[in-house]
Each structure stands twice: as structure tokens, then as C-alpha cells.
């Protein structure tokens, strides 16, 4: 019976075996979760943020738990492009799952430096442009809140990505996310991923200081899920649907029910993020859960579920 259900997804021309990804920064560079899951079972995999030069990241504490969520301020700690190519790419080459590189930088030329070097790599399916990270002084979200800058960076990267898929990751805390989404799409984005984390703060009332060394961090986890579902639905209705741009929906997804909400809202694919820290095998369980839902709801092709939100 399960075989009769088609949960494969056409994601901007790329056929994915199923709609479930792991979100950037929650599953390492490549195969770090190998002790827990077979990463090749996923629909897609997104690396942590890669920058042109290595970055040490922010001082500690870098995380703090909140009610139904957590704040992180890692600051793009990563090995840098050279070491990524030397050490991590050979691991990625052995994977059959489509791999997307999350690209970050302080300047447009840094983003381009990463994309240019990786554009010719056969093993990479595409790029996720991080213009929404709230935990860095320069770059990141500073590009992602102004439609003109979104256009500029998206079109510049699009020119260098060698025909590979370009997905733009959106920040949630903007006046109108559809304006940003439209800017990205008009500048050449093949897909949109949303949402990144919300800038937030936790205060230690004994010391009267922020708990995080960075003072603020990005709020993720179940706490942001209803907002993420709303924003995915908004972008789907106002931008993505007419232009046939697929959405990778994320924000607090822990299980299949959460994932299905996003799909109904308009996401063609979904990503588990914070939940990977708690249940490293959750993404595979979500795939199974989606199949079961389709069976029990007589859905033979998951595309019939995408954006199927009733409003009457």
C-alpha cells in the first residue's frame, strides 16, 4: 500500500524522493548524524553556513533554552571554504541525497567567492543563500530586510551559481515578508526557504545581563511554529503560488503533524531544525509519518496536499 503513495517532490525541477530536509546548522557539514540516521533517506540535506574564510564564531554562552524553544548565537562558526572543499566535500560526494550548501558572508563578494568555487561541483544540488542570520554584525540579516539589497545579492549570486538551484532563506521579522520574497524571486531565486530564527533575548535576573555573550540570539523551536506556518502561507498565497516557486518550510517542526501543517500552508518541502538536537532521527520518522497521513487521508500524490488550506 505504501508503495502506491507518491511522496516524491518536484522542487524547482529537482526530483526529491520525499519532502523532508534537515535545516542548516542542525546537522553539520555532511554525515555527522551517521550514528543515528541514514542521511540518504532524506529528501534533501543543507550544510551549516559556509563562509569564504574560516570563522571562530561567537564567545560563549552561545545558547539558552526558553519555553518551547531555544536561542542560539553561534556566529557562523565554520571551517571556511578551503577546508570545506578539502575535508567535507569528499564526504558529501559519497552521499546520494541532494545536498545544498548554505552560503553566508559579510559582503556580497564573500557570498560570491563561496558560490563561484562550488558552482562547478557536480555533487552539489544547489545553494541556500543565508541573508537572514540575526547573529552577526555584518552580512546575514542585514542583506535580508531591504528588498533592494535582496535583489542585488540574489541576482549577483544567481549569475555565478552555474545554473545550480538557488534557494533564498528569508528572515521572519520584516514589515512584509512577501515584499522580500518577491524581490528574491524577481532577482532569480528558484526556491524560497522560510523561516530563519527571530532575534530574541533572555536576561539573567541575578546578574541583570543577557544570558548570551552575543546579548541576542535567534529563537527557534516549537515556540515559533505557528508564526512560521502563517508566514509560509502568506508567501505561498502572495508570491510563490502564481510564480510556481517552491517553498521549503521550517520553524519548530518536530514531527509529521507539524510538517503536514506546513505542507497544507503551501510548503512543497519541509525541514526539521532544532528537533535534530533532541531526536537526531526525527527527520526519518517525519517521512514515515507523512506517508501514513497520506494513506489514511487517501492522498496518492503529496502534491495534492501542498497549499491545500481550506479558507471557506
Amino acid at each position, binding site marked *: 500500500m505504501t508503495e502506491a503513495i507518491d511522496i516524491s517532490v518536484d522542487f524547482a525541477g529537482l526530483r526529491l524522493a520525499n519532502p523532508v530536509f534537515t535545516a542548516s546548522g542542525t546537522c553539520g557539514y555532511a554525515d555527522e548524524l551517521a550514528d543515528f540516521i541514514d542521511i540518504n533517506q532524506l529528501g534533501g540535506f543543507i550544510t551549516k553556513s559556509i563562509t569564504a574564510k574560516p570563522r571562530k564564531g561567537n564567545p560563549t554562552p552561545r545558547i539558552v533554552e526558553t519555553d518551547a524553544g531555544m536561542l*542560539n548565537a553561534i556566529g557562523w562558526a565554520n571551517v571556511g571554504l578551503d577546508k570545506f572543499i578539502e575535508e567535507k566535500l569528499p564526504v558529501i560526494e559519497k552521499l546520494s541525497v541532494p545536498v545544498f550548501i548554505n552560503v553566508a558572508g559579510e559582503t556580497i563578494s564573500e557570498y560570491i567567492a563561496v558560490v563561484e568555487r562550488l558552482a562547478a561541483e557536480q555533487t552539489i544540488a544547489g545553494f541556500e543563500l543565508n541573508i537572514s542570520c540575526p547573529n552577526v554584525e555584518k552580512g546575514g540579516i542585514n542583506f535580508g530586510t531591504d528588498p533592494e539589497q535582496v535583489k542585488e545579492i540574489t541576482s549577483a549570486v544567481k549569475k555565478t551559481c552555474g545554473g545550480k538551484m538557488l534557494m533564498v532563506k528569508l528572515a521572519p521579522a520584516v514589515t512584509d515578508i512577501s515584499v522580500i520574497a518577491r524581490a528574491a524571486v524577481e532577482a532569480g531565486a528558484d526556491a524560497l526557504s522560510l523561516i530563519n530564527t527571530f532575534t530574541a533575548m533572555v536576561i539573567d535576573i541575578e546578574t541583570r545581563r543577557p544570558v548570551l555573550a552575543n546579548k541576542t540570539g535567534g529563537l527557534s523551536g516549537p515556540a515559533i511554529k505557528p508564526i512560521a506556518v502563517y508566514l509560509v502561507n502568506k508567501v505561498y498565497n502572495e508570491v510563490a503560488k502564481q510564480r510556481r516557486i517552491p517553498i521549503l518550510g521550517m520553524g519548530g517542526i518536530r514531527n509529521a503533524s507539524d510538517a503536514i501543517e506546513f505542507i497544507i500552508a503551501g510548503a512543497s518541502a519541509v525541514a526539521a531544525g532544532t528537533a535534530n538536537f533532541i531526536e537526531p532521527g526525527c527527520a526519518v520518522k517525519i517521512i514515515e509519518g507523512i506517508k501514513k497521513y497520506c494513506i489514511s487521508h487517501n492522498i496518492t500524490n503529496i502534491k495534492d496536499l501542498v497549499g491545500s488550506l481550506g479558507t471557506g
Partner: protein
Amino acid sequence: MPEKNSSSDKGQFCATVRANKQIGGRFYRLDLEFQAAAAKTFAKFRPGQFAEFDLSNTALPPAEKIPEDLTDAAGRNVLLRRPFSFVDVNAKKDKTLAEVLYCVVGPASLRMTTLAAGDSVSVIGPLGNGFWVPEGKKRALLVSGGMGAPPLLHLAKVLTGDYPDIEVIAFAGAKTAKDLPFEKQLDGISQQLGFTLPEFAKYGINSQVATEDSSAGFAGMVTDCFKQWLENSNLARDSAIIYACGPEPMLAQVAEIAKEKQIDCQISMERRMACGIGICQSCAVLCRVDGSQETVYKLCCEDGPVFDSKEIVFSG
């Protein structure tokens, strides 16, 4: 106990609670039996390694059992797993028994107190690198502060069992006698080094207690107690090694003493962490790059939690 850095061999396991006993004040001992599949990985478990416990679905104790200072924190949801070291691990054939000695400090450890015999708990482990024993060591000096004692108690057991040539001496400190995570009453503990703490004495290890308020043992910091002992001993520094676990300011002091006396020293660090498996990058520890002024962040969960004290750049 093999040399440092065995290959990572971890998994997600189910453990059944055998007992969960309050041993005094806010200290408890949780006695676990792991599912049979855990035996292979836990057979290689070394003192100082740790595991991540999922306590998000564990119930809170009734309101009257919640300490007043934790009433607000108690109501907070627990989302992330919590890292715990072990005070004892016994992995034989397909049977893996492990004990956690924990202190109630927040919403997760408060929930942990309600685990009862027969309950099951999800555990990811073993994680990180534990303590290791370099060649030629004849004397091991264990220095703990407050809740730093459990992994050192485990180390004490392994050292006395597997390294009969190494003489072990323990120093355990805390703010007050009540903050020492030991089962027995500490009244009348002498200031002399002797068979004082039953938890160490059962392995034939001499120990000394230090309390900042002089409620038990040496009056002052455990680092002062340890330093005083070092001054009076004729320790052969090459064949000695210090193992320390406790609050960071205390560890910084121990590292300083080790440097001054030129004694090898391993330190177990603590950081806020989410995943425990090297993914989230939260638990960064600032470390020196060999023989240079350069520094780099290593991960407490994957590169540690046990580090060579010379590596660590302590803050403040």
C-alpha cells in the same frame, strides 16, 4: 582505559530506571539499566564521558516537593536534552548498568527526581572524551569542586581497579558541607588526610574535604587545600597527574597550580550545550593552538569535556 580519543561510538538508547534515591539535600543517585544493544558501545565507556538525557516528558514532582527557589523555573518547559556524567558504569556482556549522581538545580533535574523504578528514559551516549592515563604515572591527584565529584568518583574506581601501580589521592571541596554530593554525614570529618570520605575510602583512596565556610574539613577553597598538600609533599612531578572537575574559576586555579608545579593536568569542562554530538556548535571552549598565541574554539561535547589544562584559555 585506552589512550585519548577512541573513535566516536555512540547511539540513542533506552534505559530503565532501577532506583532513584535521594542521598541527602538536593542530591540523588539514579540507577539505570540500559537496553542490551547499548552494551557494545558502553563497554568502552571511560570516566569523564557523558550522555544526553531526554527529560522533556518526565513529570514534575508535586508542588509541595518543589524547592521554593525553583517554583518559577519548575513551570518552564524542558525542550533540550541535558548532559550528565556518570558516577559508575558497569558493562558486562549484554548488561549495562550505570549510575548518575545529580543535583536538583533547574526544571530538568527537578523532573528527574520523579523517575521511578521501571520508568524508561531516552539517553544518547557515550559522548565526548573521558580522562586518559599517560604512560609512567604513579600518582593521581583528584580535585573536585561541588558537583564535579561524580566523574572523579568513577575515575577513582577505574584507576584503583585497572592501574594498581597508581596511588590515588582525592580532594573534594564545596561551599559548605551540605553542598558536597556525598551520601554519608560529614560531621566530624577531620582536617587530616585520611580515610575520610567513604565514597573514596571504599576504593582504598585517601581523601580530604575542604569547605569554604569551614563546616567540614579544611577551612577554605579546595584549591588552597590541594596547594598546601602539594607544598608539604615530596611529589615526583613527572610521575604525577592531576584530574579536576568543578566550577570554572576553581578549574582555572587548578590549571595555574599545575602550570606552576609542572604537573600534567586534565580538566573536565562544562558548557551549555544543545545536541552533545558536535552539531549545534554551542559548547565552545577557547583553546590555545600548540605553541602559539593563536586561539581556537573547540567543542566541549566532542573535543572534551576532558582537556589537557595547558590547552584551555580561562576567561577572567
